[in-house]
């Protein structure tokens, strides 16, 4: 559905995006991860034809980037939502519906879906950040798009709004839609994405299913709370089957190689340490992100 090949965008000597190769398949939620300034928004703008690549090429729905026929099948929210301040939320959507050749009937259903229907008659300028974000999502959903491009869609939303957004994205994909979802809030993407791409300094540094990327960074780690901490750390470092040890106070994180949690526990007890906590911790996306961008 989205194919990017060596895509790049430079502003003079500044390379916002470099040699980006990326594929998003129909029906999946693709999490596009990167810190602020990594190149996520620039990439999304190129997908919509808002800015032109300086190198490489790409296609959406098999058509060149920015092709009107393909953009008409996309719902997007790129960067902060921008609407006409003197118009109500409803009138803003009615205006956009006219630009797209859609009827007014699509407006209220989009407002309903985004949870903004009760305040649709208020002027945009009086909306809170969360309401503006909801209006942006409503605009993106108008006209039953096949592909959603959402850039940090949970910005400004409260926890329940963030949960609603996750549900909305998941439901959209479950109903056959495709989503490209960018975020720097890694937990947001982790819960909904089928595949993930990590962009850093304009380059895609990792791509794949979450499990694959986790595997690249390492398996689960063992968290041990035992006293005295420094001695526990020394003992674990010397133990065969342990790849790495990091201590913060009495809490020691152990990168397990061939050793098992049970074996580590047994050895610590045998050596006379008081073990008060022992748990396996899965790699979070934060770990993954830190790992791949550090590399």
């Amino acid at each position, binding site marked *: 559905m989205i194919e990017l090949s060596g895509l790049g965008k430079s502003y003079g000597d500044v390379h916002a995006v470099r040699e980006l190769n990326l594929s998003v398949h129909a029906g999946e939620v693709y999490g596009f991860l990167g810190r602020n300034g990594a190149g996520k928004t620039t990439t999304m*703008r190129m997908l919509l*034809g*808002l800015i*032109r690549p300086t190198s490489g090429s790409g296609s959406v729905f098999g058509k060149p980037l*920015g092709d009107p026929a393909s953009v008409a099948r996309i719902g997007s929210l790129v960067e902060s939502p921008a*609407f006409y301040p*003197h118009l109500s939320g409803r009138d803003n959507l009615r*205006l*956009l519906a006219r630009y797209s*050749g859609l009827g007014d009937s699509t407006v209220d259903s989009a407002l309903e879906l985004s949870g903004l229907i009760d305040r649709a008659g208020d002027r945009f300028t009086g909306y809170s950040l969360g309401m503006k974000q909801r209006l942006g999502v409503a605009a993106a959903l108008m006209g039953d798009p096949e592909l959603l491009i959402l850039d940090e869609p949970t910005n400004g939303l409260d926890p329940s709004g963030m949960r609603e957004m996750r549900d909305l994205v998941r439901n959209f994909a479950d109903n056959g839609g495709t989503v490209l979802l960018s975020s720097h809030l890694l937990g947001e993407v982790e819960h909904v994405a089928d595949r993930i791409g990590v962009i850093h300094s304009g380059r895609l540094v990792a791509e794949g299913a979450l499990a694959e990327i986790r595997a690249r960074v390492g398996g689960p780690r063992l968290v041990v709370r035992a006293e005295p901490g420094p001695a526990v750390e020394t003992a674990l470092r010397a133990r065969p089957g342990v790849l790495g040890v990091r201590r913060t106070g009495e809490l020691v994180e152990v990168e397990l190689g061939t050793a098992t949690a049970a074996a580590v526990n047994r050895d610590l007890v045998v050596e006379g340490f008081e073990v008060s906590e022992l748990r396996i911790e899965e790699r979070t996306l934060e770990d993954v992100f830190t790992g791949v961008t550090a590399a």
Partner: protein
Amino acid sequence: MITNNLRAELFALRRRPGVLAMAGMWSTQVVVFAYLVPYIVYLTQGSSMAPAVAADMISGLLPEGAHYYVAGALPTFGGPVMLVIGALLATGDYRWGTLRTVLGRQSDRGAFLGGRFLGLLVALLPVATVTLVLGLLSSGVIAMVNASPARYGDVGVIALELGSLWLVMAAWGAVGFAIGMLTRSPVAAIVVGLLWTVLAENALALLANVVPGLGFLSTLLLGNSSNRLAAALGSEPITITGAFGAQPQGTPLLAVAVLITYIAAAFLVSHTALRRRDVT
């Protein structure tokens, strides 16, 4: 596609307070400065004027001369207002960041610009109509107060005047639109537009009058062509400086051609600017 965009623009235009305020300001100007003030001057000073001058003055304020002040005042006073309207229409999306919202839904920039430009031209038609109607109404009231006969021109004359008013307004609005598209700032567009039309055009016209062989330059200017068209309607152009426009150059047909050229050139410039530009 362009039909969708035009529908959207007309929907938005009816809800643009800045544009509506400027159109309202021009309508007020017409009533106050083209009719009310001159009539007060006539009432208070008419008896001390030469009879021929006083008769000229009142005849221009009566229905049969309704075009006199409206058309004559348009290039100098109404033109800049239309220029501001054009600049506001072109720069609003840059000011609010809404260009990415609109072009993110439909990326045909030619259709978008065509719709907006056409929207401007269409919107100026009711403005021209209101201007003319206000002129006719004001002159009717003056005729009634002055106990003079209210003889309106035939429909053909009124239609011709309406067309001329619209063409002049459209040319000025289009120039403001193009400058707005180039500068992306309403303030910059208005300053550049007014400096050009008020100062630079007057200077060029003076130069053309003084330097032999440059006479044709006057006929290519927006102000001159607007004044020439107003003069063709029978009005004596009202100018700020009096240095330019008092004797507009060229033929009415040439003036029409020049004004249409300004509109076409403004569209091409705007289209080129938008097509090449990244939208951030």
